[in-house]
């Protein structure tokens, strides 16, 4: 009987040594203990396909197709242009909500390179991205709203466009927030409401 226990203990220690504790790092795919219907022959987003020749389940839209909900009657709203020329003014409702949404989106997508204040002082600049535009520069204050919208959508120079990640409304919200950053950076004491000026003792 002693030998039986000895073999048992050796077995347990061996199993523990091979299996290791929970949560140990491993590059082996997880074992599916009862793989009943875990993987069905269906197509998931961004997954692999054995059927299509390019091996993906995601199909590209047919050329010229317009996805539902992405067609805009108003040309200026969608492109920032009136005919040939960049237009002025905001085709969306200018409100506190639009500004707040613009701030949030700006901080997600733009601030990494253009800086939280829009002055181009950012983390990526420290790592060698030296040509980032300074958004509060007079050159960009002079841009029309439509032109700023076009840069967000299609990119300019070395910057790639953000059309895939910002919806039409969000692009305008971001332009609105950039205008606010420009006002804040280039403002003077006279821009403040009298009550606030008094509070600050100016």
């Amino acid at each position: 009987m002693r030998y039986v226990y000895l073999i048992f203990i050796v077995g347990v220690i061996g199993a523990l040594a091979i299996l290791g504790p929970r949560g140990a790092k491993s590059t082996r795919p997880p074992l599916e203990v009862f793989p009943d219907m875990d993987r069905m022959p269906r197509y998931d987003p961004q997954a692999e396909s054995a059927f299509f020749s390019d091996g993906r389940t995601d199909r590209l839209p047919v050329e010229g197709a317009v996805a539902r909900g992405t067609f805009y009657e108003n040309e200026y709203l969608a492109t920032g242009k009136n005919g040939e020329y960049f237009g002025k003014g905001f085709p969306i409702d200018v409100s506190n909500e639009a500004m707040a949404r613009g701030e949030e989106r700006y901080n997600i997508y733009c601030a990494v390179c253009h800086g939280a204040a829009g002055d181009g002082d950012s983390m990526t600049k420290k790592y060698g991205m030296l040509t980032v535009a300074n958004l509060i520069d007079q050159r960009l204050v002079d841009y029309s709203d439509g032109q700023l919208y076009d840069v967000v959508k299609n990119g300019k120079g070395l910057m790639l466009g953000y059309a895939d990640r910002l919806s039409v409304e969000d692009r305008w919200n971001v332009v609105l927030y950039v205008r606010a950053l420009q006002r804040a950076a280039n403002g003077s004491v006279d821009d403040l409401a009298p009550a606030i000026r008094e509070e600050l003792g100016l």
Partner: protein
Amino acid sequence: MSNVFPKWSNTLPLKLIVFLLILAAAVVSGVTYYATPKYTRVGYEPSQPVPYDHSFHVGELGLDCRYCHSKVEESGHANIPAASTCMSCHSMIKTDSDLLEPVRASYASGEPIQWVRVHETPDYVYFDHSVHVNRGISCVECHGRVDEMEVVRHDQPLSMGWCLDCHRHPEEALRPLDQITNLDWVHPGGEKGQIKDGLKFVEEWNINPPQSCSGCHR
């Protein structure tokens, strides 16, 4: 009567029973410890075709999760970014790095990079990111401190009991909506404050996570 059985055989049945009990206990505890997603999944970190590092891009550069996983608020599937997302920066930074060769090739040809999938619920489970992310559940509850991981690691078991633990007590996890992608946020009031505010959010936002089978198996 001759001695057919030697004397020691008197205690043999007892010894056998004791041994079988110990063996059964070992098997049961082995199965409960090992045959669960807490062992089979947690810690899985496949090596990826590009050694993309969340701890640098998120922790150091300060990128928001939504910069890359941009559809996580709108759709059930949190998308893995296309190569053009990386090229926003890597067309200017580290343009000659060998590590980034697959990214440049993918950007030029349109062929996707073949990232290895880390988290994958079984196909009979319905899971949707947007409902969780827009209702005050942070990425950290389900993916752990991704902003400190050099290689993405499976941090939580994603088992049914684990989903239900939170669905029964969502107040332990709910947080203000502007802190969803801020993975080191903890409630400034500690555990008590979290529960208090959590209960307030449950009330105000009318949070009611499904606990019936058809909620997740539809």
